[in-house]
């Protein structure tokens, strides 16, 4: 190297050193602020909070092995990472939005590439250190409080890598936006647009799918909120989201509470980190290329980037449309379309006023808005046609290993785990049966096709009970050999459809499962509450009017005999005999794990089961007779009055917004106003004429599937307080009641 060359090289190094020093001097406050905030969020929140510090946290069996980040502030940590990235990138590169500063820096002896390298180096270094130092301190505190543990260092490195990447991605996005915007406002708008684009798309698509795509399961939870049918699109594609890609890993690897089964922390997967690192490199290269192409004369001028302006208007217009459309859809489809389009147009006009469209003519903007609206329309069409009949095609052609389908029948014969809720007069249970036989799979497909082809019917009543549509959770899942699962969900069903779902109980697989409820099994494997109730629950017997209740104390042998008889009866009965009995109940059996509380009111509870023994329960009745137990429930009861209310969920002011169990199970209540559906005034019909009472009594049932319509009946016994609630099926309603 010549002396001159060496001089130039030293000069260049000096200039670079000076430039980096200047950048640090001007922006070092960001580093200080960021480090301070991360210090609070990471080491302080994990070790400094009284009562929640790793130094004094109380856990059993010495379970907590390390906690690098407090689980209560995951969201804050991610938010700060993203915000620090934004601040770093925008502060370091915002000079391009100031004409004077642009002139200063571009007139000096540095290429744009050198300017970019110097500034990005400072930015990445600051972000790396401000996330690393707090993490290192957290490691030291963990070792001090809990001792060294395997994977502590690995997890700390992993978490640091993730947080650093989040911040860096946000930083590079803000740098890119500095080059394509002309003011701080524009920069912020475009940064928000860029960072939230995946979120906006997922949320918008999901909102529209929930309303338009009949069968959509994405992002749906059951009415009770206890079960998420499928993750939302936002959760599904979080690994592609610059704001959320590290969320699950942060939650999984921030701490280790040793379970009984293993003392090895879960392995970390570097795939997402590697993917985003590659994306970061590409984005950084793109930012460099943008700076190289960037025209200094555009400094400080807003509305210069038509593409970004259109994307901003498109994304915001789309999410606004989706929100308004979804909000109003249930009220009126046409109103929702009109309001959605109006909101979309207003969004475009807002951005025009805000200036991001610069000198783009109104006509040109109108045409592009029209094109965007057309795209939204196409999306809506795709969803509303079920991806052009994709669901039907799947149902017809798919070959799967297993299906899961909702059980809508008698909860006392449910042999899988369930969730649900109940009040004194009603209940709702959700459970899924897993079926593998070809017969079962085909039947499930038939039922699914029935739901799919019926379309989204409005929730309303009808004179024809089969056509009454109520809220209900119905889902169909198809599981392939490799475990891949596809699920469809329907948030409503007609009475007719719910009755069709009972046909599942004719499948041999289901019958076998139900029979298993009444057979002996290893106690350790019993997780189903219904089975527990049969196996160990207190047994009560009572008359059909729930008035004389007795507790049965049976030995294990006797209990098994009784259950065996019940199992045989149920397996031999048809669906009609079980759900639409022509005969009255002769006795009621209750198996209860909460008998002390529920034996008076006979209210359904997940821990209880009820059996309404008609004459079809031959074996059971025979066993009870042989063991002299039936005599206790044979007494005649005199009825003082019967109050009737039509079983119609839509008869009152309040439209039902929550599902209810369709299999009526009789119960006791203190008042005559405890019907399972609360109604307006004047809809109850009281019968106190003895002859009429007798006529009605003949049709009353303790257990009945309400899909064919009927009346709810509150029976007052002569000389007794309280009311016995039973069901009067439509086919047994006397003429004088109909009139």
């Amino acid at each position, binding site marked *: 190297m010549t002396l001159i060359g060496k001089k130039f090289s030293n000069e260049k190094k000096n*200039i670079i050193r000076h*430039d980096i020093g200047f950048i640090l001097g001007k922006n070092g406050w960001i580093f200080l602020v960021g480090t301070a905030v991360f210090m609070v969020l990471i080491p302080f929140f994990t070790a400094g909070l009284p009562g929640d510090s790793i130094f004094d946290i109380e856990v059993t069996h010495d379970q907590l092995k390390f906690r690098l980040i407090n689980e209560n502030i995951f969201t804050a940590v991610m938010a700060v990472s993203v915000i620090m990235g934004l601040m770093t990138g925008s502060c370091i590169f915002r000079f391009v939005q100031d004409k*004077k*500063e642009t002139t200063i820096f571009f*007139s000096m*002896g*540095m290429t744009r590439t*050198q300017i970019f390298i110097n500034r990005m180096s400072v930015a990445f270094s600051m972000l790396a250190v401000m996330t690393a130092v707090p993490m290192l301190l957290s490691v030291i505190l963990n070792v001090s409080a809990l001792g060294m543990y395997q994977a502590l260092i690995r997890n700390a490195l992993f978490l640091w890598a993730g947080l650093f990447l989040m911040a860096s991605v946000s930083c590079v996005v803000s740098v890119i936006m500095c080059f394509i915007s002309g003011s701080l406002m524009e920069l912020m708008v475009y940064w928000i647009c860029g960072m939230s684009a995946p979120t906006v798309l997922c949320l918008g698509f999901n909102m529209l799918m929930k309303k338009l795509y009949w069968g959509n399961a994405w992002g749906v939870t059951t009415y009770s909120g206890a079960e998420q049918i499928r993750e939302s699109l936002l959760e599904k594609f979080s690994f592609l989201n610059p704001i959320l890609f590290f969320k699950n890993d942060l939650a999984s690897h921030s701490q280790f509470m040793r379970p009984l089964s293993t003392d090895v922390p879960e392995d970390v997967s570097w795939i997402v980190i590697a993917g985003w690192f590659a994306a970061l490199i590409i984005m950084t290269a793109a930012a460099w290329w943008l700076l190289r192409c960037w025209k*200094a*004369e555009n400094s400080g001028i807003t509305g210069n980037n038509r593409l970004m302006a259109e994307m901003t208007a498109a994304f915001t217009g789309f999410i606004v449309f989706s929100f308004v459309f979804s909000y109003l859809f249930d009220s009126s489809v046409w109103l929702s379309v009109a309001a959605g389009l109006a909101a979309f147009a207003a969004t475009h006009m807002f951005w025009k006023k805000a200036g991001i469209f610069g000198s783009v003519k109104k006509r040109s903007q109108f045409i592009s808005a029209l094109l965007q609206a057309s795209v939204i329309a196409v999306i809506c069409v795709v969803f509303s046609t079920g991806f052009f009949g994709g669901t039907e095609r799947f149902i017809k052609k798919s070959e799967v290993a297993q299906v899961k389908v909702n059980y809508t029948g008698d909860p006392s014969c449910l042999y899988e785990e369930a969730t649900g809720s109940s009040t004194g007069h009603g209940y709702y249970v959700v459970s899924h049966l897993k079926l593998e036989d070809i017969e079962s799979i085909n039947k499930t497909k038939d039922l699914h096709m029935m739901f799919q082809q019926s379309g989204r019917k409005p929730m309303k009543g009808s004179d024809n009970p089969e056509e009454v549509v109520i809220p209900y959770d119905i889902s169909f899942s198809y599981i392939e050999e490799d475990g891949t699962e596809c699920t469809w969900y329907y948030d409503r069903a007609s009475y007719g459809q719910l009755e069709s779902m009972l046909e599942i109980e004719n499948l041999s697989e289901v019958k076998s499962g139900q029979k298993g409820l009444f057979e002996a099994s290893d106690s350790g494997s019993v997780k189903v509450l219904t089975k527990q109730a049969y196996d160990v629950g207190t047994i009560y017997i009572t008359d059909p009017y729930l008035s004389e209740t007795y507790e049965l104390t049976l030995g294990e042998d006797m209990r098994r005999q009784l259950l065996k008889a019940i199992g045989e009866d149920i397996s031999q009965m048809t669906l009609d005999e079980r759900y639409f009995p022509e005969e009255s109940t002769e006795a009621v059996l209750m198996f209860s794990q909460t008998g002390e509380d529920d034996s008076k009111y006979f209210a359904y509870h997940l821990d209880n089961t009820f059996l309404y023994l008609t004459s079809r329960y031959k074996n059971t009745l025979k066993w009870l007779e042989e063991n002299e137990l039936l005599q206790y429930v044979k007494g005649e009861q005199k009825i003082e009055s019967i109050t009737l209310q039509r079983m119609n969920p839509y008869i009152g002011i309040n439209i039902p917004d929550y599902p209810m169990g369709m299999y009526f199970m009789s119960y006791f209540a203190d008042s005559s106003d405890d019907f399972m559906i609360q109604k307006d005034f004047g809809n109850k019909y009281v019968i106190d004429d003895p002859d009429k009472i007798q006529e009605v009594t003949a049709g009353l049932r303790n257990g009945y599937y309400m899909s064919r319509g009927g009346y709810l009946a509150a029976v007052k016994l002569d000389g007794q307080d309280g009311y016995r609630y039973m069901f009067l099926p439509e086919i047994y309603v006397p003429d004088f009641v109909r009139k």
Partner: protein
Amino acid sequence: MIEAECITKNFGDFTVLSDVSLKVKKGEIYGLIGYNGVGKTTLLKILSGIYRADSGTARINGRSVYENPQMKQKCFFMTEEAAFFHQFSLNKMRKFYSGYYPKWSDETFKGLVEWFGVDPVMKISRFSKGMQRQASLILAFSTRPEYLFLDEAFDGLDYSMRRQICEMFRYYVETEEASMLVSSHNLKELEDLADHIGMLCDGKLAFDGSTKYMRENYQACEFIYKEDMSGLLSVRHELLEIKKCVNEEYRKNRYYCIINGSEEEACRSLSQVGAENIQIRPIQLEEFFLKERKERDADWKEIFK
């Protein structure tokens, strides 16, 4: 040498510069003039490597300036508006610039600060417009550039200061063999300072020549003409190679015009058409500027009614 060759620059659909070519030699001061918005600043920024021309080349000593750090270290561009960092003092700006310009001279800086009498510790944002211009000049010359681009060099400076600064410019250019390209609306100072004048008009370089050439080939004439005006107007194009007969002020019989030609040619031409009492002098830069820039008629009574 600073060299612009066929430079064209567009801002969107608007063409600011069209096929502009000029040269500034070593030890020369080039004055760039033109009406507001004609593209002076744009040309300066292209020549100093801040902007990229859409076509054509901007070279210094035969090498492109754009993205050429070695060349840029020898250049300094002084903006029309004072360009300083927010809340910075002159001392802080010194620290800033000294790191980027290898030939920075603290002695020059101190000397100029003392001579201009500005406070190096006070924030520049608190300076008056003229003092900010002085601060800009201090920083510009402290970098000891070989090529200076000064946009509105005299803006905000009082008459006395302008004259002294012209002396400084002249001294620096001659002793350092620097090249200077100066734009200004102070045509009087520029006329005395510049060796060469370039006038931009409608995106093109309407005039590019030395001040000496300008004085030798353009004459400002005053004369008395009593004949019919049509006679003067009709003959001037037949007998004389008067390119344009402009800026005529009709004040009784006294006329004023600018003639493209030497003093003798001008005198002869006017005499031939019957002009009397002819007075001829070399054109001034202001007159030359007005010659190219047509003033717009305005009905002030209507505007301010």
